[in-house]
């Protein structure tokens, strides 16, 4: 085991290296690019026995990832935001091929307006595709999750691709100490890729990804994929146990903090959970029974675990770093679905949208969220969804709008005068 100071991107690249990836179709996009740069340097130096090919788009990149994995090699790739959505046709397609490989998504807000900074609308767009989704909150978790993702994706009862998600900037460019698993132990943990029937060879005719006629066969194959993805929940627990035994670090499907006696709960995904973690500490010191539940596995959705975890709690604040236009937070809807009709479900399941496009969620905001759900719970009321935004932010945007307006006027006057 070696301890290194790594960015989230560096940690992702190490995951691919330790998993003995054979093939890396690539395409640069901020904030992911450092991953493929690291890998290309290792390949050029001969430190990694893999081939990397830069495609001309993410659509092609994901196609090549799927077709190579369908031809028998272990594949790793990485993208972000616009790239993930440019390749979205193939995200769905290769998942339907039941072809296992691992793709990193470095979360970044979707255009428009175009931005480089982080939120989860990109990864939410892949929600229904058939990819597994593991969401990370620390650099250590990224390396470890890549190794576990290969085990999960390649498991013979699952056989679908997996996305390991990390937040742009907050994780991609933040250095943290990472205990790198020993190379031999990592190789033994991940094991050889057994392509089973996914392999073209001269002596064995094989058609893959064929068309179907009619809803009967189509529904059958879609249901099969759904059941396989769902099955990943129980398989994950076995893999997590083995990972803990081998490397001494345990990663549960839901990462719980101070949940034992918590009456008020934050629910969220990704690296902003470390901010909520701090807020929980402060609130606990002030005597509030607050906890944090961070979903690590978002697909498959751990519905039963959520029901057990939230049963009997007084109020829950679901924080979404995404926005479904005309509906609100995606995670909130999913939690509402999971808890609907459950006896002793929390009376308040409130939706807070924040952290879009790299916007911070301050400690003060975490305190206020808890205060609001507590008050609603005390009064027996429900709470309207909130879009987090401060007075100060509103003042700043008004200033920008005033400048834009003045510029516009000036150009008009020049043209007319």
């Amino acid at each position: 085991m070696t301890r290194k100071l790594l960015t989230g991107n560096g940690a992702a690249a190490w995951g691919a290296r330790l998993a003995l990836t054979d093939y890396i179709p690539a395409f640069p996009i901020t904030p992911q690019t450092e991953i493929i740069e690291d890998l290309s340097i290792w390949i050029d130096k001969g430190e990694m026995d893999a081939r990397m090919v830069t495609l001309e788009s993410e659509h092609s990149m994901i196609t090549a990832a799927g077709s190579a994995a369908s031809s028998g090699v272990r594949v790793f790739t990485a993208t972000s935001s616009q790239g993930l959505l440019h390749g979205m046709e193939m995200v769905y397609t290769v998942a339907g091929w039941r072809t296992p490989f691992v793709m990193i998504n470095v979360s970044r807000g979707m255009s428009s307006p175009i931005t480089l900074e982080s939120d989860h609308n990109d990864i939410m767009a892949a929600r229904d595709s058939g990819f597994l989704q593991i969401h990370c909150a620390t650099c250590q978790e990224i390396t470890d999750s890549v190794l576990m993702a290969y085990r999960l994706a390649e498991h013979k009862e699952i056989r679908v691709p997996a996305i390991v998600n990390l937040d742009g900037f907050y994780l991609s460019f933040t250095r943290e100490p990472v205990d790198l698993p020993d190379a031999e132990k990592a190789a033994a943990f991940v094991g050889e890729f057994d392509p089973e029937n996914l392999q073209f060879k001269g002596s064995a005719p094989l058609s893959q990804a064929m068309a179907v006629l009619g809803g009967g066969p189509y529904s059958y194959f879609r249901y099969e994929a759904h059941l396989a993805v769902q099955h990943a929940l129980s398989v994950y627990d076995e893999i997590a146990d083995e990972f803990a035994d081998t490397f001494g670090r345990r990663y549960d499907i839901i990462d719980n903090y101070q949940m034992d006696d918590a009456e008020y709960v934050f629910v969220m995904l990704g690296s902003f959970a470390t901010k909520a973690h701090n807020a929980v500490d402060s609130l606990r010191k002030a005597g509030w029974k607050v906890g944090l539940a961070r979903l690590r596995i978002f697909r498959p959705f751990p519905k039963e675990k959520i029901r057990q975890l939230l049963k009997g709690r007084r109020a829950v604040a679901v924080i979404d770093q995404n926005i479904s236009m005309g509906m609100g937070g995606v995670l909130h809807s999913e939690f509402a679905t999971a808890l609907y009709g459950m006896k002793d479900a929390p009376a308040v399941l409130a939706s807070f949208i924040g952290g879009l496009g790299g916007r911070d969620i301050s400690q003060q905001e975490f305190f206020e969220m808890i205060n609001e759900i507590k008050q609603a719970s005390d009064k027996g009321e429900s709470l309207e969804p909130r879009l987090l935004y401060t007075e100060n932010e509103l003042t700043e945007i008004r200033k920008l709008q005033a400048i834009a307006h003045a510029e516009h006027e000036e150009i008009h006057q020049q043209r007319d005068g």
Partner: protein
Amino acid sequence: MIEGTPVHFHRMKDMPSSHLLGTGTPMCAGCGGLETLHNMYDILGEKTVFVNAAGCMTLLSVYPFTPFRGGWLYTSMASAPAGAQGVRDAMDIMIKKKKLPEDENMEVVVVTGDGSAYGMGMSATSGAMDRNLNFIYLCYDNEGYGNTGQQYSAATPHAAITSTSKGSHGYPGFKKDLFSIWAAHHPAYVATIIGAEPLDLAKKIEKLQGMTGPRMLISLAPCPTGWDYDPQLSVEIGHLAVQTGVWPLKEYINGKVTHTKIPKQRKPVEEYLKLQGRFKHLFYPQRDEQGIAEIQARIDAYWDNVTE
């Protein structure tokens, strides 16, 4: 073709007598694209993975049936060459890492229609050539989005009636010169072919089998349903496409374009046009002398510059 048999295609009797592609496919009667694929497959042999883009040929392999004796992978409309990249790279890696014996290697062949090749798939095709991917690409060109009912595409010729150019003058645009666009990438090989000239086609397949890198083929694919003619005329229309000079048979190697079949005396283009319903407006209710003359003039101008 039986493995190891020396092949030199000089005459029709040199052509393979056994046929590999299964029968009973859902392609239309008289499909010119299928004719080309038949001829190619007999020479390429069983150790071939076809990587397909959305188009008519996607319906060749419908679960649980396939006419192929080797591999098949459907990708999407835009990314078949990228699919070929992944398959080729994976096989090379597996051979190098001794996970696949060399005699299990297969030729990777992209099969797309003109809708993909001339438009949506062009970026992926260009990329595959940039990377010098070792593959074969067959575009079966029926000059329109045939699988959706023959709307015009960038491959549609001037004046053709399609289901989105039904006006009295047909399609106002001009067929894009994909051969030159491909050749500008300087791949190992580019050729035009047609199923109705199997000997020319066979010679070209044999030639490209001895090469590595991108080997690019565009086959004109007479299309009874899209071009509106009786299926039994497919071969005749194919012959006329060559004899009138509408479809020049040529190849590009090492920076040089050579015509493989220069018609000694070109037939008038109207002999080709008048057999097809899509050009009927040039002849009925009255002859459009100017329209026909313009089409003839463009063909003549092309051949005026051809010396070899």
